[in-house]
């Protein structure tokens, strides 16, 4: 299973990004890590280039929402990305807001799984479960 991951926008917080890569590798995924400071186009280009099954975008500085708004529009320009599982996680808001308001918002932006301030392993467990269910269906 191939995963493209990275930190979106002008966000240079690198620590969790490295840990996500380590954890995904440990779980047997083939990881293409674009690192910090990555723009949406770069994510989608990489997903096409690698034939990724999952696109896992992360954000810490809270500016993800500005980028997430453009996901649907941009993704529709790519022909081969209809089946890709879209995941976003980290700290998804500037200031504070609870998951009940954030999760539906991001789902509406085109994400299948949304993790706002969720522990890394819990998030990846949920992703694995989701992929398993999807394969059954």
């Amino acid at each position, binding site marked *: 299973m191939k995963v493209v991951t990275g930190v979106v926008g002008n966000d240079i917080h*690198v620590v969790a990004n490295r840990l996500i890569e380590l954890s995904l590798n*440990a*779980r047997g995924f083939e990881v293409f890590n674009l690192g*910090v*400071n990555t723009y949406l186009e770069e994510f989608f280009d990489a997903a096409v280039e690698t034939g990724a099954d999952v696109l896992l975008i992360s954000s810490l500085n809270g500016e993800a929402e500005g980028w997430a708004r453009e996901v649907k529009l941009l993704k529709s320009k790519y022909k081969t990305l209809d089946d890709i599982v879209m995941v976003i996680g980290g700290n998804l808001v500037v200031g504070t807001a609870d998951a009940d308001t954030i999760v539906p918002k991001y789902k509406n932006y085109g994400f299948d799984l949304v993790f706002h301030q969720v522990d*890394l392993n819990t998030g990846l467990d949920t992703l694995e479960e989701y992929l398993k269910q999807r394969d059954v269906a």
Partner: protein
Amino acid sequence: MSLLQEEREIILSNEYVDSFDFAEVEEFVRGADKELFISHHFAQNKKMLVQPRGGFPTYKKQFALNEFFVNANVDVLPLTIDSNTRLNDYATAKKMLRLSEESEQDMLNGYPLVNHGYRTTRKMITHFNKPVSLRHGTPDARLLIETAIASGIFEIEGGPITYLLPYSKNFPLDKAFLYWKYVERVCANYSKLNLPINRESFGPLTATLVPPAITIVIQLLEMLLSLEEGVKSFSVSFSQTGSMNQDIVMGAVIKKMAKYYAKEIGCEDAVVNLVYHQWMGAFPTNKDFAESLINTSTVIAAMVGANKIITKTREEASGIPTKEANAKTVANTQYTLGILNGLPNIVDEEEEENLTLEVKAIMEAVFNDEADTLWRKVFNSIKNGTIDVPFSPHIINHNEMITIRDANKNIRIINRGGVPIPDRCFLYEKSKCDLTKDTTSIVNDIIHDIGIMQ
């Protein structure tokens, strides 16, 4: 006219520079008071010098900050530069400076030195007559350094590796080496006119589980790149690791190795100082705990035998500190240093030997690179993973090395990636750790190990 002078004239005929008078600046440096030179204070060797961090956008606020520091008995004043200037975006810095001057709101996270210019800034620096250290993070610092020295700032922090790998994703590393070569030459040339200008490397790097061997190798290489251009006073540095013993071992090894490699290139006449950074990782939000951490750092700096300590504040976890909090740390650190008497001499021969072997093996691999100049050898070594900095965001860095803490909180290498850590040392490092755990628990340990002080 020399090539360097031609380049200087191009750099200084910038629209944001108000006519740079080379002759006048030279005259100023030649006649500058020795008190302004940190190299003079290092030579006196009376006590560990205390230097806080800090920079405000406006002249007025920077002046007020300096007044607070001087009242708190500071030894070295900092001048921290804003992020736009660090990226050579003087237009934005100019606009934000105006906005900051017109309201009470600070629109910059530091002092835009190029926009203020050397004529203005020099007034402040000569007024306080204390050594000033330039703190920035600039890959292309040519104009900034010219302006700094012309202002009376005779200590310049940074380097092509330490100001790039922790801060940037894709600024070209080879360019950074060439831009810093210019900085070294300008510092070396001005050093001939009066006391030496001190160059300081930024040892904390990413401040995230960087193993001592990597820190020391990068410190030594930036030192050599500086000395080979003629710099006569250089400070190597590192930040608190989380283990007192590891800090003491690191201090001993870096001092020995700096002397050894300076002599290897025929620069034993240069003075090499040691700078210690108080904890550079995430701070506790509890401000009293933060003060306790700061005091512990000061004790360790004394055990390490540092020549200078760079302080944090009790407000570290909550953003840019107020001048009051900043000055308070200076006063507290001076107090702690004053009461630290009769320190024991701790030597851990086994750890020193292991670290020395690691450092020498990496240095040898760098020197054996086939390139013709040192900077190219270093560039190739970073590019091919011989040097690998944990948690660097830069695309050139390999990120294959993995480190964790052992039971005593020492940082240990459990995956060496492409770094030529000798087998014997690698086995020693791993023997200190519990490696029976699966990767998921190791990742949890790493998260815990990064945040040990919180």
